[in-house]
């Protein structure tokens, strides 16, 4: 696959192979940027009982950039995303194999606590799910408070900071004690993003964050994503190709549980290496 890409796309920068564990394979998609990889994924496979949902995915997700994961329904995008913060630990029948290195340390290594990983790798879900029994302010700070943070000054500061980063401060600053579910759908989703940001993760995973929202709210979320990437690594699953093209720097195309192609968004959408990728982005299927 690497040979293919080098042959047909000379615009890809030729980099020294990324430093990683022994047994470097040629079949790994290259890290396109000069920035270090935030997440180095090697041969990641996820199966639920007898069904293999994700087969041997290997890629490097660069830091401080937006990576989009695209593909038709059932291709393993969400499965891949959830493997990055060990959400599959909650499913008894799930088996995860392979390596996922978060800034160098394997998150599935022996003795690694999932709780610690999930504080470093946050997640925002498709359906906004603010906790119904809590106010707006309590929702944002819940990740800190339930992890033992008592310092009120710190909580207030993080509350303000997260709501500003989520472009929600101006809209809710007068009703921080209102119930969180009294906000509109788009506001609730931004609240969930603020909630995830409050614990200051290094990576933020977003599973179709705008798919349940109207176009105006979607545009706001996309602006937010572009602003966030200065400080965070973002990985976004989306079934909306135009959204992927608008917000992401790199795109990975999955199909039937396999990573088909991964590269700069510009390239994937204008001059993809694989025929399958081209068929998908031009709408011939999916």
């Amino acid at each position: 696959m690497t040979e293919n890409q080098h042959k047909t796309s000379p615009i890809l920068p030729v980099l020294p192979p990324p430093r990683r564990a022994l047994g470097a394979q040629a079949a790994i998609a290259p890290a396109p940027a000069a920035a270090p990889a935030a997440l180095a994924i090697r041969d990641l496979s996820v199966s639920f009982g007898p069904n293999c949902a994700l087969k041997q995915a290997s890629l490097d997700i660069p830091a401080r950039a937006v990576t989009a994961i695209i593909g038709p329904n059932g291709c393993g995008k969400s499965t891949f995303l959830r493997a990055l913060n060990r959400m599959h630990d909650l499913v008894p029948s799930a088996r995860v194999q392979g390596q996922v290195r978060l800034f160098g340390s394997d998150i599935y290594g022996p003795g690694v606590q999932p709780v610690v990983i999930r504080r470093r790798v946050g997640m925002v879900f498709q359906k906004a799910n603010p906790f119904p029994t809590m106010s707006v302010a309590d929702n944002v700070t819940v990740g800190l408070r339930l992890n033992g943070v008592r310092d009120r000054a710190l909580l207030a500061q993080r509350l303000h900071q997260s709501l500003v980063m989520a472009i929600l401060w101006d809209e809710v600053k007068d009703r921080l004690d209102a119930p969180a579910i009294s906000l509109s759908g788009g506001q609730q989703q931004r609240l969930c993003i603020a909630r995830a940001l409050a614990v200051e993760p290094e990576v933020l995973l977003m599973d179709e964050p705008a798919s349940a929202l109207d176009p105006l709210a979607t545009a706001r979320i996309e602006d937010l994503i572009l602003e966030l990437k200065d400080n965070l690594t973002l990985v976004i699953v989306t079934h909306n190709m135009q959204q992927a093209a608008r917000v992401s720097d790199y795109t990975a195309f999955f199909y039937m549980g396999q990573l088909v192609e991964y590269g700069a968004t510009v390239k994937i959408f204008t001059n993809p290496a694989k025929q399958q990728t081209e068929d998908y982005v031009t709408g011939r299927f999916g």
Partner: protein
Amino acid sequence: MQAVTCACALLVVVPLALVFYHVLKSGIGALNWAFFTQLPKPVGEPGGGMANAIVGTFELLGLAALLGVPVGVCGGIFLSEYGYTRLNWWIRFAADVLNGVPSIIWGMVVCALVVVPMQGFSAWAGGLVLGFIMIPLIMRTTEEVLRLVPQGYREAALALGIPLRRAILRIVARAALKGIVTGILLALARVAGETAPLLFTAFGNVYWNHHLSEPIAALPLQIFNYAISPYEESHRQAWAGALVLLFMVAIINVAVRALTRERFGKIP
């Protein structure tokens, strides 16, 4: 068809209305201040009250809740949140069977296990048997209510790096709190009227109970004793006691309704 179903619905209301009307009519006459403050008088003598029985019922409910609520709620949380499929199946099966065990059998069991070794009837034994009856009830209702909490909240809580135990207690159980309290109140209403198990555990008392290891009076027990006695005065007192008991249970059910009414903060 509509006429038939309407008639059936009315048929359900009729016994309820009859019960309320009859108890109210027969009992209201004997209700006075003395009823709520005085001890039972010796048999045949007019006057007296059921103060000790009313207080005794509250005491027994309190003891029962001490046992039933923690065990039932924690059991329900275990069944719902910690998924050991095979084990949970057996626990649910056991709880469902226990829910159907006649309460007099519970009374006999606790009599053999507690009353006989203690060589005496006691409030402890009464509270214990009522608590045992409450446990499977509360366990099942708690589990059902927790299952209704959308999975999204659990995932969101865990994705924030909150440890599982804290996520369950502070977020999931908090979201289901109304339902859990409803289950507890309904279980309390159910055991408040249990008479048979108390017959040989709490036994009843015509005096005040000064120590929890002594026999204790309870409303259903006192009603039973008065109802089978030959004196008319006792019968009047029994109706009054029945009215008070009915009122207690009705208040609990109204409280349940008030708690579960749809307000602004409905879980979406």
